């Protein structure tokens, strides 16, 4: 059982799903958490864990074939939950590798591209990045400026991508660009002339993750590097659906870590009347609200997982989960921070780390407000983006 499990959702999981979750949880506790603060402090990712994550089968865990683990979606979601219980940066790493880099190759690549990249990526030997967002276009990627011009047997890329997770360490970037046939995805290898990267160092959220800018200046790539199955922005959005699904579970992990920390702290911390602060009504209301919201989010995840396995999860259902669960996680982290008083602002406890991380997660993969608009359109049929 992984706390909190107020509605005994454990009973709805298969023994294998529980074992997958607990195995990843043990990995996170033993190998990642002891070094998380060091990396959060210096803005870096513990690269030495990549082979161990690969050995476990975390990268592209829900993809079939090509050396991927071929897990069901619920297991995949639970993996993301346990990674993010550790840190959103750790989960982001797995999301970018699996859902945003391996998935597009798996879904839109030709056989040769799949054979070339997927087994190495599953083994963590080649890292990927996903370049959609640009300096001038985030929520509205359709208006992107990056362009790929066909010239003989080559494409020539020009433009820039911004906020790209793992951008500087990736061997292969999945880059989205305008073409004569609309937006399409390309594989750009590290070291290709005209392709440079720059790490964004001064950031105060998701500090256990590497974020970068990508620049393309007359960057020539062979035409075989086009992902042939990509057709318009919808292909990029299909990747985001994979990622958002995992993030919905991940946010439950981050919230759970904050809740457990705050509850334990409140039970130990004594202020007035020689009693722990947990014995005051105001504190109990906070804890009750946190548990209620986490439980609701778990139920959303559980149902969404089973829907996805049945091939019935649509993009607006995934939007609902991402929007609702991230709002929940952000609120829970804030309340936990309050409960810890001044202790809530230092790295002795995981709360401030999750608190600041969740600001990124709230924004990336479609901001909260963008998911509001997606749902608004699903409800009314009227798009309100423009």
């Amino acid at each position: 059982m992984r706390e909190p499990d107020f509605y005994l959702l454990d009973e709805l999981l298969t023994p294998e799903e529980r074992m997958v979750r607990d195995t990843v949880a043990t990995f996170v506790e033993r190998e990642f958490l002891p070094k998380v603060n060091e990396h959060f402090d210096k803005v870096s990712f513990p690269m030495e864990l990549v082979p161990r994550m690969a050995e476990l089968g975390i990268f592209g865990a829900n993809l079939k074939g090509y050396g991927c683990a071929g897990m069901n979606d619920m297991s995949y979601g639970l993996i993301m939950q346990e990674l993010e219980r550790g840190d959103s940066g750790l989960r982001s790493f797995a999301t970018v590798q699996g859902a945003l880099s391996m998935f597009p190759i798996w879904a839109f690549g030709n056989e040769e591209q799949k054979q070339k990249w997927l087994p190495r990526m599953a083994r963590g030997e080649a890292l990927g990045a996903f370049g959609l967002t640009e300096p001038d276009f985030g929520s509205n990627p359709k208006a992107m400026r990056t362009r790929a011009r066909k010239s003989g047997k080559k494409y020539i890329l020009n433009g820039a991508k911004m906020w790209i997770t793992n951008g500087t360490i990736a061997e292969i970037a999945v880059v989205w660009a305008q073409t004569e046939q609309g937006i399409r995805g390309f594989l750009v290898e590290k070291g290709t002339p005209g392709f440079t990267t720059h790490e964004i160092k001064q950031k105060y959220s998701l500090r256990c993750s590497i974020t970068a800018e990508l620049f393309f200046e007359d960057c020539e790539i062979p035409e075989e590097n086009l992902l042939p199955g990509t057709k318009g922005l919808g292909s990029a959005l299909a990747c985001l659906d994979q990622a958002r699904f995992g993030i919905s579970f991940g946010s439950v992990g981050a919230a759970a870590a904050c809740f457990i920390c705050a509850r334990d702290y409140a039970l130990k911390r004594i202020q007035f009347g020689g009693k722990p602060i947990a014995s005051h009504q105001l504190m109990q209301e906070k804890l009750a609200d946190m548990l209620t919201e986490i439980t609701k989010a778990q139920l959303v995840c559980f149902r969404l997982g089973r829907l996805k396995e049945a091939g019935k999860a649509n993009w607006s259902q995934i939007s609902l989960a991402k929007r609702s669960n991230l709002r929940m996680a952000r609120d829970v982290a804030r309340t936990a921070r309050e409960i810890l008083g001044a202790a809530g602002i230092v790295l002795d406890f995981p709360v401030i780390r999750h608190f600041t991380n969740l600001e990124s997660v709230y924004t990336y993969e479609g901001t909260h407000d963008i998911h509001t608009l997606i749902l608004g359109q699903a409800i009314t049929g009227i798009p309100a983006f423009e």
Partner: protein
Amino acid sequence: MKIGVLMKQVPDTETKIRIKDDASGIVVDGIKWVMNPYDEYAVEEALRIKEKKAGSTVTIISMGPKRSVETIRTGLAMGADSGILIDDPALEGADCYATAKALAKVMEPENFDLILCGKQAIDDDSAQVPQMVAEFLGMPQAMVIDKLVVSDDGKKATCYRRIEGGAKEVLEVDLPAIVAAEKGLNEPRYASLPGIMKAKSKPFKEINLGALGLKAEEVGAKGAKLKVKKYFLPAEKAPGKIIPGEPEDAARALVKMLREEAKVV
């Protein structure tokens, strides 16, 4: 090589142990059960030998209640080939002697070339079952081993153990033998996620005493040579004392306390 691994499911090392009101045991509700950490080394070592010697198999054998199945599955997910659980209500209250007898009985027909296990289970810390199993099976034993080398022909094993004074003792045993793992033998792998899915379809059998040809009088509480009278928690430790001040003053104060209060120097 045919390798058997003895494995016990134990409470997670982080568990807060509570004693039953009648002092007859510990409260098991809410406990997270895991593989005995020393047995993890044994499973890992078995898998490494298997990876080196083509055609080898690893069987996990456990005695315990039904819930032990999940821990056997962990071993299967790490890469073991099959599992056997001895589960019988009559085994409740078995001591090391009775446990070893049942384990030996189930292993007899398997004709293992090597039996690996942890040096002790971290729940009751008896550290007796491996030796007794060896006796019942008439096999050589090498206990508390932190390095193991099986000869190429699979007929001998060289076992290294740390002994007093930091020295090493090197034992050579003829196989089949039973070898009990100490920390440091290896670094156990995690069950891989695809391995977890595969574990479901690996052969696993559950047997009761009847099937083993043993009687409750021999191996259950009734066959036990040792009876636990009661369980209790150690008294809570008094809080430590920190002596403030400059090192010289603090040292002086410490010596004074050792002499006058603790009366040990």
